[in-house]
């Protein structure tokens, strides 16, 4: 099977997975107590049964659940319509997502790049210096990084770097997302979101690298007279990245869910903060929309990992 066919096959597999995600998301949200009608009753307890029936009709709640699901899915697929929020100011969910998604994607990618930039070099270093001081120090730091909760780390970074050292604004008015100055604002939340993943990845990198270092092809590469640098960075690295890629895809989920907390802590105007507000106000369509996009992000990360996996390891394509 050629690499192109392999990729095509994986891409096609995404669609049934997406369908599954949409069913699960829809069912979970429907099973959760709270819908627009109840919110309206809460706001206006004097509402009569006629009024309630009218509202139910309006939000399609009189139909059976499967029909509601099909309507919802149909609107998304056919019209790109994710529904809208209700209340005093109705907003289209697709508008909210279009506005907020770039913010979250930028934050998540920054966290990602930070995690990889820290994890891969230190992982290599720790594996090459296995059981020496550097390895022990990095293990200690990584363990700390895994153990620190996101929200606490975020608050501490704000406390130290913004309040005590005065290096960053606590929560200053931001420039638009695409302004270069955004990078400055990204630093603290990005580090917060990437730390746990960096620690995890670094440990995986180290152990997979250390395992590869014991293989005979490494001795064979050394026996060819190649410099140790080439042996490690060419022969060992590519083999160890294969298992790192798999784990990295899993960690995307951690970064995505981490963004919910981190955006709240840093006042970052992304989807995560929007999601918390949506849950608080029982904005069913918005919860559904954001959850669906989160699922898509994780699926895409896994797709990317699968493809990268095949590019790194020539044996995969022929399975």
């Amino acid at each position, binding site marked *: 099977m050629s690499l192109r066919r392999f990729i095509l096959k994986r891409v096609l597999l995404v669609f049934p997975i997406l369908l599954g995600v949409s069913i699960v998301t829809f069912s979970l949200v429907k099973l959760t107590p709270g819908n627009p009608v109840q919110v309206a009753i809460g706001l206006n307890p004097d509402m009569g049964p006629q009024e309630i029936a009218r509202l139910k009709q309006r939000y399609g709640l009189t139909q059976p659940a499967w029909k509601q699901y099909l309507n919802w899915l149909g609107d998304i697929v056919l019209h790109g319509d994710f529904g809208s929020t209700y209340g005093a100011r109705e907003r289209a969910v697709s508008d909210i997502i279009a506005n907020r998604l770039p913010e979250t994607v930028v934050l998540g990618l920054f966290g990602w790049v930070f995690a990889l930039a820290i994890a891969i070099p230190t992982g290599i270093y720790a594996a090459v210096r296995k059981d020496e001081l550097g390895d022990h120090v990095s293990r200690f730091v990584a363990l700390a990084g895994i153990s620190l909760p996101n929200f606490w780390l975020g608050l501490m970074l704000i406390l130290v770097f913004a309040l005590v050292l005065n290096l960053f604004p606590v929560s200053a008015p931001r420039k638009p997302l695409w302004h270069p100055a955004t990078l400055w604002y990204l630093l603290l939340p990005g580090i917060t979101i990437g730390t746990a993943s960096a620690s995890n990845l670094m440990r995986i990198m180290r152990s997979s690298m250390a395992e590869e270092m014991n293989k005979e092809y490494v*001795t*064979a590469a*050394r*026996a*060819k*007279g190649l410099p140790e640098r*080439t042996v490690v960075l060419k*022969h060992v690295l590519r*083999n160890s990245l294969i298992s790192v890629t798999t784990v990295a895809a899993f960690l995307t989920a951690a970064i995505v869910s981490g963004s919910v907390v981190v955006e709240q802590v840093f006042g970052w105007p992304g989807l995560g903060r929007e999601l918390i507000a949506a849950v608080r106000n029982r904005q069913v369509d918005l919860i559904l929309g954001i959850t669906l996009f989160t699922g898509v992000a994780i699926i895409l990360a896994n797709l990317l990992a699968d493809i990268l996996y095949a590019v790194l390891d020539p*044996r995969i394509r022929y399975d």
Partner: protein
Amino acid sequence: MTLLEVNDLTVSFYTEEGVVTAVDDLSYRIESGETFGVVGESGAGKSVTALSLMRLIEEPGRIESGEILFRGEDILKMSESEVRSVRGNEIAMIFQDAQTALNPVYSVGEQISEAIRHHLGYDDDAARDRTVQLLDRVGIPDAESRYGDYPHEFSGGMQQRAVIAMALSCDPALLIADEPTTALDVTTEAKILDQIQDLADEFDTAVQLITHDLGVVAKICERVMVMYAGRPVEKASVEDLYYDPKHPYTVGLMSSIPRIGDERDRLQTIPGTMPDLVDVPPGCAFHPRCPYAEECCARKRPPLVDPETGDASTAADDRAAACLEYTGDLENGLDFEVTVEGEDPLVEEEQDAR
């Protein structure tokens, strides 16, 4: 001309169970262009010896002492970059298991040409051409189109050939072949051995052939060293070793070779197994398994001596054995007979204590 001279090489591994002396006071030499056999059971220290020659012993192993003179220069005293310019260039190694010695994620061709680019300074195209020629020379059909194949697309025999091509890529003066055929079936084995021999002749390369197979030694080696528990027990030319073995262990190895036409229904074996190197028996390491062992064998470690004169052997000596018989300590002597099947006994001797 002496290409390689190993003097008093000792290599230890510091394991959790204790210090394992994998190679103990080993001396030998290899002449330019000759094929030198190193024989012994698994764990006798053959592979460790081979890796030591390229200074590739890794933690927890350590080369404790000795010298490895390659063209008169001590490899153990070289700087790291000097050793690297010898590795793969002047001394190259054919690994035992080609499947694990090849990196699964790079093409076979790339793995050969990277050494050529590194040592000979060829550019990409020239290295590629040379690699294709080498692959063709070791008998890979359609070498040009197989260049980009990955190791898993090669059969076991082809992988081994590729590893041989890799070892020959920079015209080494010494080729270390570490059981190059154990992973292969018998017919492929014969072809590969022929090929190693042909190529060694063609390129005038000396070969250190490591094997546990005395049949292989008889076929292609000129001189042989027999190792037991990290120590050399006998050194001889192939003829002497086969017709006039001096050490009881060598005799044991010989009699455990199956022969066509043999009437016995059980193969003769050496009783017992090789000792754990953490706990090598005192005195002669072979004495618990030796049919001729006497009391002194457990107390005195036999030095490697010339069996005729009893003088201590050096790397330059061609004939040596490490048995107390030759230092005059054995009371009853060695009582074995060597017969050559199907012919009149070429050598028949009864050895007694002098």
